[in-house]
């Protein structure tokens, strides 16, 4: 066993390299800067490109361009940067441009506090695109998650052709921890599915995207008889990709487009495209669900949390266990799309749910709408510091809701 000592932001960078990321563009912002700093050390020796944009909008534009040329791209920022990313996020979402966006969250609103943590942007990430298209958001708890979830994020971005967000937090990104990287379980890499025409194999074999051996085999039985149509896909499906600069001409546009990549005003074509953008994410809920749990026998309470708060929740429940009280935990690493089936199934046997958030309640509504018949208690904190295990124990022990209110119908 050999331990390394690194902060979450470095682990994100190492995860990105592991996932085959070859392009980074970003703009310095605390507490996300060290993702950029690490990529700047790691990419050049690997032949990759790392650029400082003239601002956040430009950084996202560089990423969009590079992704359309077939690169796996990463960018990192914090809340004020996500605000500026927003118009480009809409472009990447609506025009199916894969990339991974790390939001090392800090205390908002606005400039807020550069060096104070909070899960400020959980709703902002979900609804930060014009059109309200569903997105994928993963929330790490620690350095290990920063490493492995970044690999998952790249896989999801490539598979579903969309931006994938990592909702990190100052308290993870800038906290150093010992970690044995070799022991972290990582998923197999997924590559962007390239369009292959049965008649013309060269169309995609000479482009800069490297495809795995597996995929080559698979594609032999999976080629198209017709010509490349950039946004053609089954309902709920993901269009095959070809890069700008390859032998087949590619059209990309931020405007409302049909499968051919040209502007359209035909209501049926528009509706089909909108439905597909929604369905390709929502229908993949199970594939996208990543979580952790600690089920304790005889527990009647389940604590649901995400991000860095999950660590304090687990500590609190361990301490309660020593005091003879059994409480289970569920930690969500996938926040969006909401893992509805998971939440419903895992909560089934508990009469009481406690939800914890390092904000004033950005996710609780989702738990409430899924668990209508449960007694749900909520504690949220937005003061620049971590929720302590002591505070969580207090909330859990307040079964009569005297201090921490019951939120919904089930609690009456």
């Amino acid at each position, binding site marked *: *066993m*050999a*331990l*390394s*000592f690194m902060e979450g932001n*470095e682990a994100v960078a190492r995860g990105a390299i592991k996932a085959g990321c070859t*392009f980074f563009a970003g703009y310095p912002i605390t507490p996300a800067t060290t993702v950029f700093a*690490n990529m700047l*050390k*790691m990419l050049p*020796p690997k032949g990759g*490109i790392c*650029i400082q*944009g003239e*601002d956040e*909008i*430009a950084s*996202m*534009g*560089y990423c*969009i*361009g*590079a*992704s*359309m*040329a*077939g*690169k796996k791209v990463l960018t990192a920022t914090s809340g004020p940067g996500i605000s500026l990313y927003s*118009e*480009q996020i809409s*472009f990447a979402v609506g025009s199916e441009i894969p990339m991974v966006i790390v939001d090392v969250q800090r205390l908002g609103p606005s400039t807020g506090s550069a060096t104070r943590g909070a899960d400020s942007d959980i709703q902002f990430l979900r609804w930060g695109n014009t059109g309200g298209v569903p997105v994928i958001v993963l929330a790490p708890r620690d350095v290990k998650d920063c490493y492995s979830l970044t690999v998952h994020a790249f896989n999801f971005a490539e598979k579903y052709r969309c931006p994938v967000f990592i909702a990190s937090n100052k*308290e993870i990104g*800038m*906290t*150093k*921890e*010992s970690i044995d990287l070799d022991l972290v379980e990582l998923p197999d890499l997924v590559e962007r599915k390239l369009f292959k025409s049965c008649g013309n194999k060269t169309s995609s074999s000479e482009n*800069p995207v490297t495809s795995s051996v597996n995929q080559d085999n698979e594609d032999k039985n999976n080629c198209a008889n017709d010509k490349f149509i950039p946004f053609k896909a089954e309902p709920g499906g993901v269009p095959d990709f070809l*890069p*700008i*600069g*390859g032998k087949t*001409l*590619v*059209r*990309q*546009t*931020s*405007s409302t487009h049909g499968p051919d990549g*040209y502007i359209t005003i035909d209501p049926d074509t528009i509706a089909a495209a909108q439905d597909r953008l929604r369905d390709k994410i929502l229908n993949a809920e199970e594939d996208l669900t990543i979580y952790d749990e600690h089920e304790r026998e005889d527990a009647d309470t389940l604590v649901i949390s995400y991000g*860095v708060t999950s*660590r*304090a929740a687990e*500590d609190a429940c*361990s301490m309660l266990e020593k005091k003879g009280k059994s409480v289970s935990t569920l930690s969500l690493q996938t926040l969006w799309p909401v893992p509805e089936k998971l939440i419903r199934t895992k909560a089934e046997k508990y009469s009481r749910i406690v939800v914890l958030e390092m904000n004033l309640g950005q996710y609780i509504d989702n738990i409430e709408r899924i668990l209508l018949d449960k007694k749900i208690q909520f504690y949220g904190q937005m003061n620049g*510091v*971590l929720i*302590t*295990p*002591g505070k969580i124990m207090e909330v859990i022990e307040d079964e009569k809701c005297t201090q921490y209110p019951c939120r919904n119908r089930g609690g009456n």
Partner: protein
Amino acid sequence: MNSFLNTARPPVFCPGCTHERITKSLDSALVSLGIPAEKTVIVTDIGCSGLFDTFFNVHALHGLHGRALTYASGLKLADPELNVIVTMGDGGLGIGGAHVLSSCRKNLDITLLVLNNFNFGMTGGQYSVTTPQDAVVGSEFLNQAEIPIDICEIAKSAGATWVSRCSGHDASLTEQICNAITHKGFALVETLGMCTGRYTKRNRLTPKAIDEMIENLPAEGGIVEKNQRPEYGEQYRKLAAEKTKFPEALKVEKNFDMENPQRQEIVILGSAGMRIVTAGDIVCHAGMAAGFNASMKNDYNITVLRGQSVSELILSPEKIGYAGLESPSIVLALSDEGVDRRKKMFAKLGPDTFLLKEKSVAIPETRASVFEVDFREMKIKKPDWALAALGVIASKNIGITLEMLTYALKAIFKPVVYESAMETIKKAIEI
């Protein structure tokens, strides 16, 4: 190839619009250069200039207002073989000004065609950054209160290596576009033209008037001598190629067995310049060498040379969860600023907490076991106090041992720094 024009998507401009002539000139330029369609991309902005990508049989990317150059830059960096051509109006110049300046400074091999028609055609003829003060436009009097910019002069002062300007009706436009595309570096071609749908309805502007306008503007001759330098992509790749060593994560093997490893929570309270974070790193490294898990949470000001510097450390034989500290087992109080930052903590400490306090530091009332040291008396300089304090606790086998500390210092520091660190520690423990 005779033409790159997409016959299925003919231009759709208003009758008399200069954009249509520019479309044809761009096509003639592409034909005469004989560049391959599959290695060419047209990136377009928003507005009427944003329609260009649909008219050509080359790769196409149409994005957001003012941002065309950002996509173009990403494409060019990712695929240096691409011929990247950007079309943008005077609207894009304004909203995307930062990207124009950056492109001039960077000098990536991209060609920017600025289609200046003095107003926002698509939204109703509002004034742009190039609208003359005396023009009558769709923004009431607002243009009268500002002055227009000369993008060519701006581009030159921002470092553009190729700048030219001509009328969209000029017979030499094709040649100018050819030269701009052939130029290795960022090339900006400003074309002046008529927006017949909006601008010329209320302003007298003819091809002849445009020619006169150009005569009264500074002459722009293509190559900007004073700005000549290597293309950005080449320069970037050259510099990046010198960086050959991938920074592998430093690995710490377990070297020591502790008889009864106990969880330690350590707080170092100091100020900027006292190497508090380095001390924290050393403790964690020492702990990891003894098989502990470690975590470190720091608190310091954005102005890194002033104010408090606090490092919170956990060494634990178990997995570390919550990384904050509520009741530390070891506190090193090394500056008033640091103490002040955690002043609420002192009342909560019990006699089990070992509190090392430098003589000059004042601390609030506490029940912790206080151990005072006088580093000044020992002639140890302030930037070394944190390291000296580690020496003191290690010599007492509190949290870490001297063996662990020495091992960590050796692993982290270069030999010279290691020697001087050991000197400091010797001074500190010869009490």
